[in-house]
């Protein structure tokens, strides 16, 4: 039918806009970078961006169901501390360690899901509480910064593939292919969108609403733990950093909104959240290339974030029925 593309475009407007914003910012960044567009510059930028990208993708899964996960930054910190204990030794031990970290993330997410869905608590309160628990465990694992990680694996995953492509970017793409793509095309994924859009209608259609929401929280935990692993690969240590965990939680919310995921649920995509996260990170890097005083970073970051999020609201100026302002 004619006009299909128009609706598909409208559907993915948030994701495309996030991609556009990221592209514009990154272009400005690279053009002003003393070294220009080189593999090393891209690698550094990617390594900075992927951590938030994983956490934002985790947040996006939950936000699509009209929920929110305020423990996502603490899962990230907890898995970092866990990884600094167990991702060491022989290749087999390391592999088991990675599997253990991912399983821990999945378990944290599953616990969130179980409490929110089967315990019927408000997601905000439930995940504040579980976040505190996860941080408590992180603190118990690493009262002081320390530990180590299999440096061979760490260097491989933070380096470049074939001397060009940043390995962390490849892992991010892999996560999209292995986690996001099947989720978005599955019955559970569609049920997750339905849960965020009109939960009673979904239930009355006899689709698995509750398993879908549970799956969103659990996969969110898994993605956050991939972020935690990468944090360990970058720093070679584990640290129960409270401020960092909270910052990642809040930044992940900013990133999903920037990435076109509505906090009301039902719209947006994990891919959009990734571009949102990368754009958000590039804001910080712009300061560096323009040689601004780092003290200005929070203020600058806030202003650029406001402007970027406002771009998504421009559509409201063209609204014909004023009722649509409230949708």
């Amino acid at each position, binding site marked *: *039918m*004619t*006009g*299909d593309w*128009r*609706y*598909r475009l409208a*559907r993915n407007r948030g994701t495309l806009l996030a991609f556009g914003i990221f592209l514009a910012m990154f272009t400005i960044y690279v053009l002003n970078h003393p070294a220009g567009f080189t593999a090393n510059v891209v690698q550094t930028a990617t390594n900075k961006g992927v951590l938030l990208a994983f956490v934002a993708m985790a947040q996006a899964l939950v936000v699509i169901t009209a929920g929110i996960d305020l423990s996502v930054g603490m899962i990230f910190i907890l898995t970092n501390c866990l990884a600094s204990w167990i991702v060491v030794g022989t290749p087999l031990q390391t592999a088991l360690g990675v599997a253990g970290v991912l399983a821990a993330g999945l378990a944290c997410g599953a616990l969130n899901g179980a409490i929110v869905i089967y315990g019927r608590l408000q997601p905000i309160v439930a995940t504040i509480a579980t976040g505190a628990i996860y941080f408590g465990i992180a603190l118990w694992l690493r009262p002081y910064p320390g530990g180590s990680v299999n440096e061979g694996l760490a260097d491989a995953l933070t380096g470049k593939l074939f001397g060009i492509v940043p390995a962390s970017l490849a892992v991010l793409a892999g996560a999209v292919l292995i986690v996001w793509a*099947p989720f978005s*095309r*599955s*019955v*559970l994924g*569609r*049920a997750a*969108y*339905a849960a965020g*859009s*009109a939960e*009673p*209608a*979904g*239930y*009355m*259609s*006899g*689709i*698995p609403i509750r398993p879908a929401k549970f799956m969103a929280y659990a996969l969110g935990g898994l993605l956050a733990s991939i972020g935690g692993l990468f944090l360990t690969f970058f720093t070679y240590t584990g640290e129960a950093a409270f401020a960092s965990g909270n910052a990642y939680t809040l930044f992940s919310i900013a990133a999903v909104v920037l990435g076109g995921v509505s906090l009301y649920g*039902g*719209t947006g995509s994990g891919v959009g959240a990734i571009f949102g996260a990368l754009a958000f990170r590039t804001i910080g890097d712009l300061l560096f290339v323009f040689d601004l005083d780092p003290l200005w970073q929070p203020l600058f970051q806030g202003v650029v974030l406001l402007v970027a999020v406002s771009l998504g609201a421009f559509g409201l100026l063209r609204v*014909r*029925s*004023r*009722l649509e302002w409230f*949708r």
Partner: protein
Amino acid sequence: MAADMGDARPPLLRMEGISKRFGGVRALEEAELTVRAGRIHAVLGENGAGKSTLIKILAGVISPDEGRMLLDGGEVSFASPAEANRAGIVCIFQELSLIPDLSVADNIALFDPPRRFGLIDRRAQRRIAEEALARAGAPDIHPMALVKDLPLSRRQMVEIAKSLARQPRILILDEATSALTAADVAKVFSVLKRLRSEGLALLYISHRMHEIAELADECTVFRNGRNVASYPAGTKTDNEVVELMIGREYKHVFPPKPVSPPAARPVLECRNLSWSERLRDISFSVRQGEVVGLGGLDGQGQRELLLALFGVLRGCGGKVLVNGKPVALSSPGQAKADGIGMALIPEDRKTEGLMLPMSVRENLSFASLDRVSRHGLIDRAAEDRQIEEMVRLLAIRAGSLDMPVGGLSGGNQQKVVIAKWLMRAPRIILLNDPTRGIDVGTKQEIYQLLRRLADAGAAILFYSTDYDELIGCCDRVLVLYDGMIKRELVGKEITEHALIATALNISGEQAA
């Protein structure tokens, strides 16, 4: 009489040459409307004829592209509903505008709450609410009750009270009675007639012909965004009016019923079904190929009965048998499963039927995701095949399958809800007032469809608040009163008289 004097006075409101375009669609084209004080003016037309757009322009929700509005002879334009309110134009919208989590009194005084020292004066607010509720003929509603705890029909009464508290000069009622019980409708009508005698102008939009016949002084018919006729009420027959509305000759609204009721085996049986205080000792059966109606006043347990059968209610007593075997369903997911084959077309398509922001395609396949997926992954090709078949079968008019279903007209939205369930080829079809607020043309298509489905072997249980539908569509009608089956009407016994008398719990002999 006040009504006669109204003609001599200049019109209270005139809309001239109003045009409005949404994207490529002309919603209104050179539309005109004249409203006089002390008259009830009915606006008729199919859904999509432009009535709602006209009302929204009048109420300040949207601005016209062309044309002008004259109030008391002076040109006006409204940039917001608040401005229209200040000019004395108050609208009761089809979609309720109440805030569910606030009390009745809070809602009634929402527009301009009484204040003392800048804070809301709760006592004065309660007084205003009580007065407004009394004026609306619903003094039984407690002002402190939360709106979300009230049934739909009571909420509608609150909505009317809320509009009266704003002291309107022109009151617009857009399908305001579609959720009301017959007793409430009578009360509302006496209120509206009193308001007319007080000199208000009332604009009344309804799909119910007998309401218009009872209430209106003047009528204007809209078709395809234009006003096609204005005439004094009572000068045209129902058939003539419907022909004006649909622009073609109107006949055979209801498909013929089978001469003798089918003697097939019962597909769905209910034995002594009960649920808290709302359902008491309900026993009946629906045979293959049969259309069984549920009648009675709104809120007598019909909705609960359908939800109980569909596995939504917990703690039901009694037995439900499907194909002679007892079943215990604990979710819609189980009710729709292959061994049972049940479908429920819900009452409120906007919350229980559709995900409005999601595409037509996704909405259509929601109930059948298990059939178009393999190992949990959706097979888009299989999905599209089934969807296209349904779009053809029900003649769903959508610009694109990728457009949000919220962008379709009400009738087409309802077709999507029905198609979504027909895709499963259900053997037991439960319908909860499926034609509420949709246009005549779509209603006819739904009546034909129901009979076709029954002829193809489905067992249909059909609740409607519209007596004409029960009479025209059903082989049998079960009339509910206070959670019990009061009477079963079969074949020729299904008359308006019998339905109303039983619904009001007066025996037919006494009423006659």
